[in-house]
């Protein structure tokens, strides 16, 4: 019997992010002192060490930094293998992990680093909305 897909445990630090995803928004932590985005959420800016932090809504746009194809998976992911995992360079800066959508995991050579991607949200178990990134249809 397949297990559940593992999910994060929202915390005081990440609560705003998960509230945002439930409304279809990609909220990103931003430093008011140096105006830079950082990912993941922190108590202090990793760039300038200011603690004057806020949240801004991200564009949901990015590019593919690197990827791999998972052929061996466990629990809730076992039945979906093969699938593509990836790291996304956000338009606003810094990088997120994802399972990449809109690509063919059996043709990894067709997947190109630098390809534009867009975010979408999926409701998982327990009502948590998780962001995933998708390669839009090639023009």
């Amino acid at each position, binding site marked *: 019997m397949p297990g559940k*897909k*593992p*999910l*994060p*445990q929202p*915390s005081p*630090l*990440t609560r705003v992010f998960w509230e945002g995803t439930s409304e279809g928004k990609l909220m990103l932590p931003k430093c008011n002192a140096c105006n830079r985005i950082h*990912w*993941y*959420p*922190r108590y202090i800016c990793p760039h300038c060490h200011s603690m004057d932090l806020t949240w801004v809504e991200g564009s949901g746009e990015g590019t593919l*930094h*690197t*990827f*791999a*194809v*998972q*052929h*061996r*998976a*466990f629990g809730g*992911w076992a039945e*979906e293998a*093969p*699938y593509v*995992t*990836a*790291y996304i360079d956000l338009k606003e800066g810094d*990088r*997120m*992990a*994802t*399972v990449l959508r809109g690509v063919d995991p059996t043709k*990894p050579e067709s997947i190109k*680093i630098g390809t534009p991607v867009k975010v979408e949200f999926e409701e*998982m178990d327990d009502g948590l909305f*998780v962001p995933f990134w998708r390669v839009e249809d090639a023009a």
Partner: protein
Amino acid sequence: MSISKAAAIVGAAEANEIGYPDEPRTSLQLHIEAIKNVSDYTGIPISAIEGVFSTAWSSDLAEHLGLHPKYIDTTAVGGCSFEMHVHHALCAIYAGVIDVALVSHGENGWSQRRVGREGGPSYPAHRDAPGVQMTIPYGFSGPPSQYAHAMVRHNHDFGTTPEDFAHVSVVTREWAMKNPRAVMFNDETHEFGGPITIDDVNNSRLITWPLTMLHCCLQTDHGGAVLIARPEIARDLKTNPVWIAGAGESMSHSTILETDDFTATSAALSAKSAYEMAGLGPKDMESAMIYDSFTVTAAITAEMLGLAPRGDGYKLWKDGTAAPGGKLPINTNGGGLSFNHSGMYGMHLLVEAYRQLSGTAEDGINGIKGKQTNARTCVVNGTGGLLSTTGTLVLTSD
């Protein structure tokens, strides 16, 4: 006195049984056997140990040995922790706090499926870290699921191919065939042991594209221990000292989300510290022990250590430089790929570096003819986590 060579590794030993033992072994058992063996080998009684360094709770380990150490260190930041332990022990001895240090490792990477992890490493233990939380929903599993991303990016940036990296696996197997303790020594020690070809690597089972099984390390039982002492003690022992000429450590990130460059590691920084302390550089290195959790780890690390230009690390294996008889022997025990890899490989590197530089790499247990090199210097680099943490040592035979 300079900190360089303020202490020496005076002996190294392994647990009695390593690899895939018939009878399951616990991590604590692997620790204790290795400690007993290194004590017998050096003639230093266990009761003389003043500093205990391990990734297990070092207080648990010291208690099991009945010790009351002056220095207790449980640095546990992945497989490079042991190179860091040597760095820390060097500092503690140089500072005059202790005279004799134990660095110990026991990890039943194989047997834990049957007997649990008694006495096992305290790493990893950071699932609740916010960066880790943000990778949890995305179907990653073990280390291969992450390291594959590094190979893909290296291929993109430098025009390399998975076949280029396969040479690391093939050459490392050649070394394993000189080590009777290597899991892949021959077809009697393992059904898939003995020589392999590039085609074998390419055609082995796909784990995470582009990593096939033979790009990935083993998961076995291993225990090892080294004793480190100040020069006055080292020179009076029956064993050959191997001098800690340089040591350094660093990190680029902890969580893989914070990886700035998937084709690099902080070994560039830890090696800079180690080379500077030693007053030596990459061109002075006559051998290397490099963490090969995956073929790509070893090749990238060789670049970071200055042993090859950026993008060209794999060529050390492809052109035979790293192979038996080559100019720069690398991973002469058969590596994590074909010798043993318990999960944290750093101690395996230390044991083999000691054996090579002390001239004991062919004593009937540790190797057969052709395994002993004439190297007098060795750069040792451990990588921990997901290309995260690194520890580098520059060791010399005199």
